[in-house]
């Protein structure tokens, strides 16, 4: 898990995650502001709720950002490795599985994300039926 996290959270990924880190920063700023220099007097119920709302949103966003980053970048790493493996097999002229075949001859179906130019689409068994 830790090894995976290290592979996922590279500099590029952190750059992608910046869009979520900024709102996290804004919420952290307000938590700090209200704790250190609260405009209103401390009230056990309302002050806790106030910090709870900001802190809760902060936590949930941090957790979801982590989970989604692992899911997205993890899949990206996997497909990258699969592509590399297929490429290596291609070079040694070993073509033994249907999946490899499909990877070697990508059809023109796009990468729907438009994120990068690589196209590693494989014909799914469902489509073959």
């Amino acid at each position, binding site marked *: 898990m830790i090894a995976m996290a290290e592979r996922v959270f590279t500099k590029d990924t952190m750059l992608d995650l910046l869009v979520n880190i900024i709102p996290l920063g804004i919420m952290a700023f307000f938590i700090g502001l209200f704790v250190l220099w609260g405009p209103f007097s401390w009230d056990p119920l309302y002050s806790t709720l106030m910090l709870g709302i900001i802190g809760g949103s902060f936590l949930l966003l941090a957790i979801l950002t982590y989970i989604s980053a692992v899911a997205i970048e993890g899949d990206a790493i996997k497909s990258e490795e699969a592509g590399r493996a297929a490429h290596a097999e291609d070079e040694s002229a070993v073509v033994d599985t249907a999946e490899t075949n499909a990877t070697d001859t990508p059809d023109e179906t796009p990468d729907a*994300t438009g994120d990068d130019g690589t196209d590693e689409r494989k014909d799914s068994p469902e489509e073959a039926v």
Partner: protein
Amino acid sequence: MGLSGELALTLLTGVLVLIVFALATRFDDWRTYTPLAGGGALGGETGYGHDEKPGGIVRWLTTVDHKDIGILYGVYAIVAFAWGGLAVMLMRFELATPAMDVLASVGGRAFYNQLLTSHGITMLFLFGTPILAAFSNYFIPLLIGADDMAFPRINAIAFWLLPPGAILIWAGFFLAPFFDGIAASMTSWTMYPPQAVAQTAAGQDAMSYEYAGRVIASSEIDTAALNAGTDLMLLGLHLTGVSATMGAINFIATIFTERGSDVGWDKLDIFSWTILTQSALILFSFPLLGSAIVMLLLDRNFATGFFAVEGGGTILYQHLFWFFGHPEVYILVLPPMGIISYVLPRFSGRKLFGFKFVVYSTLAIGVLSFGVWAHHMFASGIDPRLRAGFMAVSLAIAIPSAVKTFNWITTMWNGNIRLTTPMLFCIGFIANFIIGGVTGVFLAAVPVDLILHDTYYVVGHFHYVIMGAIAFAVFAGVYYWFPIVSGRMYQRTLGKAHFWTTMVGTNLTFFAMILLGYGGMPRRYATYNGVTAEGIIGYFTNLHVIATVGAFILLVGQIIWLVNMVQSWLEGPVVGPDPWNLKEDGLPSREFDWHADRIETTLADGGEPAEDEPMTDGGEPVDADDDAAGDE
């Protein structure tokens, strides 16, 4: 022999019939839909069936095909759009003058309030959510490489809950001529108690009564005097909530489990990401609406005290409602953002800039939307510490939306922009969304909100988002995918006319509202002739006239659109496999690949080939679109 002989013959005949039936099912399904889905007589798959659909109306009543259900959602939403649009046209004509005149003969202020309520609820629940479900039903399975939705029958049920929902929501209008005690609801879309708990058909308060010429407040509700139209509306709303929840579960299951083996999370397209996030929001927020509605119904009909002042209190309702209501805003805006992120790059000649920015910011919006609900309640007297907390999160949620706007602009930057109709709507979306978004950031700040709360500024702000952005994205999607759904191309000139009338109409109407709000014009009022401040009546009247003219231009634009859609669906030129020339730019998309496959299969099946090859934006050669003066 007698009886036993006859019995033996009957049995023999029965066995023969069974054998023939079993043999027949071995060769083909004798009906398109068998009660035992897919199986032959011996329980095995025959490999036949489910390819053909019954003809005529039966097809539409029995379909479980995601594409058909998508079309049903679309048609339903357009009917609702027309209803909500006509309601607001009446309101706008009334508001063109300060006094009550246009609606005076049909019910006056009470009728205005009914139109207001119906417009809001219809546009949000009967148009907004279903039109997005139309896109997602049709295209999500195609985009993720699934055969259909995970639960096709639940998909059909989710749709078929909507028409009864609409009938119940509008029932007050239909029943009012026949029953004295029933009128359309006048609660506004927020349905705040105590008004929503104690309103009569005449718009009066069922908790007060007259005694010796004086109005006496009562703690008891006279339930017999309540407007049954509101009860019917609440029940209808409940049905639409159930429908949305079922749809959401279906989309989550579909996107998680039915993705093609080649579609990892990193390869999931942006529209599917927004639908996934939207579905999660629906799943966590609509149950709140459902329970609040049930409590309202109980308070109204069974004298419970959930929202009574001496019970849970009216602010409890506002918390429950807005815990649903604010995510609802993002339920409505996230998929349109997905459509824009999907369509805009295709006509910019470039891939979406910062795809992952857009994905992560979508997820961020999804989470944070649950931490901002009380910014709708800043003026309700809640504790200032609470307001400060919600203000902080409300300011934070502006960032992910701004990031998306940045990405769309950067995608267009230095791109090879083709100003087709869907692209025009995409650009219009960005322009309007910036105004809608920036006005929203102001409202997120407590001190500004306290001044502008309940004025037309708020109305202008959210209409810039709902009409200026969400509806624009819907139109972008409609034009972009029209060739797939109908197999034909729309009329280009009418499409452009639709865009410009909608763009001009939207900005005239809603910018005037922002100025009205700065002037202090309160929202939800049928008249404003009671204003006594020097000179302000003229200011209000002029801006209201501008808003009404804008609304009229919008109406004309939507009629043009409807004519274009119907005429083109029936008679438009048949399109080829790549009507947008996407492959030229190296930006093909999965659903158009499916479209091309379908055309190829049709041809192999004996269909006639299209007369002309690919047509972009109304059948004109694609190069003409690149030309700024291309309207030859």
